[in-house]
């Protein structure tokens, strides 16, 4: 799934744009979503999105002709979001690691909820909201690597390098994040089977 070198996802169907406003309207949802999923704060995500587009404006001559403008924006949004998180993480690192959970401990077995018809009449917006909320409930050290791995297709070692943690910790955190996500959705009456159809 992530065997190849990381490549930022390029939104499909978006070609080069001459006008900056049109350019911004095409990509703003993607940029905001990328940031919001990492920082878990809409106001901060909006600030970061603004910064991304201001940087994009400085390089607009290049971006307007580039087919990989979306990938460039996503990379910048991810980097700025991680920088933002690192700034706050450094302040609380001592407290968050004091007596923290032990690494290497086996994750508890996840029992998937039996497929049900609970979501038979639930529309996609509501389904999206459930999953987004479940994602936002994850703690930072689980959510951030999970988002980087599943949404940005960044491999484990690159995630470890960017976050400044060990490869083993990244793998453990992502595994626990998946288990926690499945657990949250199970408690909410959802199941991964039902959500993915």
């Amino acid at each position: 799934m992530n065997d190849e070198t990381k490549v930022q996802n390029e939104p499909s169907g978006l070609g080069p744009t001459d006008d900056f406003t049109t350019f911004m309207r095409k990509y703003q949802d993607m940029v905001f979503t990328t940031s919001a999923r990492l920082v878990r704060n809409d106001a901060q995500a909006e600030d970061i999105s603004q910064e991304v587009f201001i940087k994009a404006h400085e390089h607009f001559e290049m971006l307007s002709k580039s087919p990989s403008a979306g990938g460039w924006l996503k990379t910048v949004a991810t980097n700025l979001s991680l920088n933002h998180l690192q700034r706050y993480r450094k302040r609380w690192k001592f407290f968050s690691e004091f007596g923290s959970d032990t690494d290497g401990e086996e994750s508890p077995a996840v029992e998937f909820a039996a497929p049900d018809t609970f979501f038979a009449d639930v529309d996609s917006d509501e389904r999206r909201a459930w999953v987004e909320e479940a994602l936002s409930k994850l703690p930072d050290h689980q959510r951030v690597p999970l988002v980087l791995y599943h949404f940005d297709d960044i491999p484990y070692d690159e995630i470890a390098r960017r976050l400044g943690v060990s490869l083993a910790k990244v793998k453990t955190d992502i595994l626990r994040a998946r288990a926690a996500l499945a657990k949250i959705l199970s408690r909410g009456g959802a199941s991964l089977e039902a959500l993915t159809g």
Partner: protein
Amino acid sequence: MNTNDKNELEARVHRTLRSLPNRRAPSGLEARVLAELTRRAALPWWRKSFAHWPSAFRFTFLALSVAAAALLVYGAITVGNSQGAHALSGGLSSGFGWFTLARDIVLAARDRVASLVASVPRVWLYGGAAVIAVSYAAIGALGAATYRALSVERSPS
């Protein structure tokens, strides 16, 4: 959790997350960006970063900086080698007599504090230091425990 379960979980989580559409950006984002770009464009060139200065001014600034540095180095070498250097140092020390006075005051205060500390029994000194260290550690531990407790309350796992 065995390998098959892990692989299945990864696949399901991946499908679930990748099926999520993008969230809608705030309606005010576009206006904010355009307003900020307009504000920055309206700034005079000397309030922007060096990279945005007109080329002529950048070149002039660099040339003046190099000239000033060369002049300082030349001046330092000239003064250091000239006979006037001794007269200059004498004039400087008389002009900075206040510095000598301030230095004497600081040294006197240091000696006074040292004599006061020497008069305090060692047991009191070490005991006081230990109390301060333990209090500091206790406050740090209390803060860490409080933070962890609040984090656990928010965490679902």
